[in-house]
């Protein structure tokens, strides 16, 4: 898969973006066949349901854990290996004792349990949105998640911009809008990052959201490394 090799090549660039902005934009991460597969999964998924709470947003969500193709699993694994050194560096910088295992299998065992999911899709129609939220885990969280867009803005839907906010201690929050097009993805911070200040490192807090869709349907993919409680996604 082309995505895998580009992750290898751009590992440092991704780290730089995450260090600076708390997200790394990965244009064209999903190729045409992956997009087709996602659309197919979306159509045939039996688990679509309205979002379980107002705190999550308005629209439909479906869990893909047992349906995600081996290619998406490979992508998840490749990204994990690329990101785990940064996750551990941030923990050191923030003085946190925990270190994530370098092995994906070990990580998977520790951070994934029955009843959770690591992949889901959102289907947002007109007037739907995703509220500002964090998708933290059942048994601890990996500091990164991946979001991707399977519909084309301006063609399949209007509105529905992906927003990330970063709250900094004693300072105003910083808003970011990630310009996702169909097939694009971004690595985003799950809930925090280590930011460098004049006196060492400090912790900032992230939330993400999708602005109201004005018309059409926006199909978004959310890949997580840790498991997220299902169906009560926070």
């Amino acid at each position, binding site marked *: 898969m082309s995505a895998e090799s580009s992750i290898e090549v751009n590992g440092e660039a991704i780290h730089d973006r995450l260090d600076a*902005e708390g997200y790394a934009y990965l244009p064209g991460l999903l190729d045409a066949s992956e997009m087709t597969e996602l659309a197919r999964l979306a159509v045939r998924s039996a688990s679509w349901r309205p979002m379980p709470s*107002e*705190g999550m947003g308005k629209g439909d969500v479906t869990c893909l854990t047992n349906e995600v193709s081996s290619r998406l699993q490979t992508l998840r694994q490749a990204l994990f290996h690329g990101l785990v050194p940064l996750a551990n560096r941030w923990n050191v910088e923030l003085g946190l004792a925990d270190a994530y295992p370098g092995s994906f299998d070990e990580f998977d065992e520790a951070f994934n349990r029955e009843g959770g999911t690591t992949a889901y899709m959102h289907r947002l129609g007109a007037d739907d*949105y995703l*509220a*500002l*939220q964090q998708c933290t885990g059942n048994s601890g969280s990996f500091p990164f998640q991946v979001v991707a867009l399977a519909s084309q803005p301006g063609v399949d839907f209007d*509105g529905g*911009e992906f*927003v990330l*906010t970063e709250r900094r201690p004693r*300072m*105003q*929050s*910083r*808003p*970011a*809008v990630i*310009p996702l097009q169909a097939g694009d993805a971004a690595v985003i911070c799950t809930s925090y990052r280590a930011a460098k200040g004049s006196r060492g490192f400090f912790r900032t807090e992230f*939330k993400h*959201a999708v*602005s*109201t869709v004005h018309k059409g349907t926006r199909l978004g993919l959310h890949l997580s490394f840790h498991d997220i409680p299902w169906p009560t996604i926070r």
Partner: protein
Amino acid sequence: MKTHAFRRARPCAVNPAGIPAPAAGRVDWANVATELDADGHAVMRGLLGPDACESMQAMYPEDGRFRSRVVMARHGFGRGEYKYFSYPLPAALQELRQEMYPHLATIANRWNAQMKVPVSFPARLEDFLERCHQAGQRRPTPLLLQYGAGDYNCLHQDLYGEHVFPLQVAILLSEPGRDFAGGEFVMTENATAGVSRATVIGLRQGDAIVFPVNHRPVAGRRADVRRVAMRHGVSRIREGRRYTVGIIFHDAM
């Protein structure tokens, strides 16, 4: 990056002094009120024509028009800069502030009644400004903002003292895609019960957005009205230059 090939043709009245006249008189205020009630913001498409936008952004280097310049990074507000106009305001801006105020005061009074805020606003801008000035808020707040590549504005509220007019207006003076990329206008609201939203408002050159300074009323489940805190900001400009004019109706200490 700046070309005028795709400039939209818009009627633009020019008065004898050559200052493009604002178009507040053409605004559908009933629609503005409906959108504000439903969404917490309202967009007035094409409030200023391209020429008015160009002449307003051209004022930025003319320091004589301004009372102060703020470099946002120095205060942790973000990156980029803005300048507060001095009185007298440029004619077009003065006219807009004066013409829009009574329409917005009607909405503001209704909102305050709904939120049980015991403040009501006089029908004329002069009378409201007199109230601000009596309380020592004498300095004009309309401002011109300039963002370049890499700049952004953190989520904030424009409060300048005890007297607050609860609605404000921002007009985008540059054209997205032609003059700049990125630089989205973002609003967040922190509702009670843990529900927060983020909204991106797509604006083009000359479009104005009316939005709450700090709170808006949202209907609760049981015919009650909740007071929801709002903040606004601008995401990072990826390239080019983005100018906005902000019209705040209360003056500052």
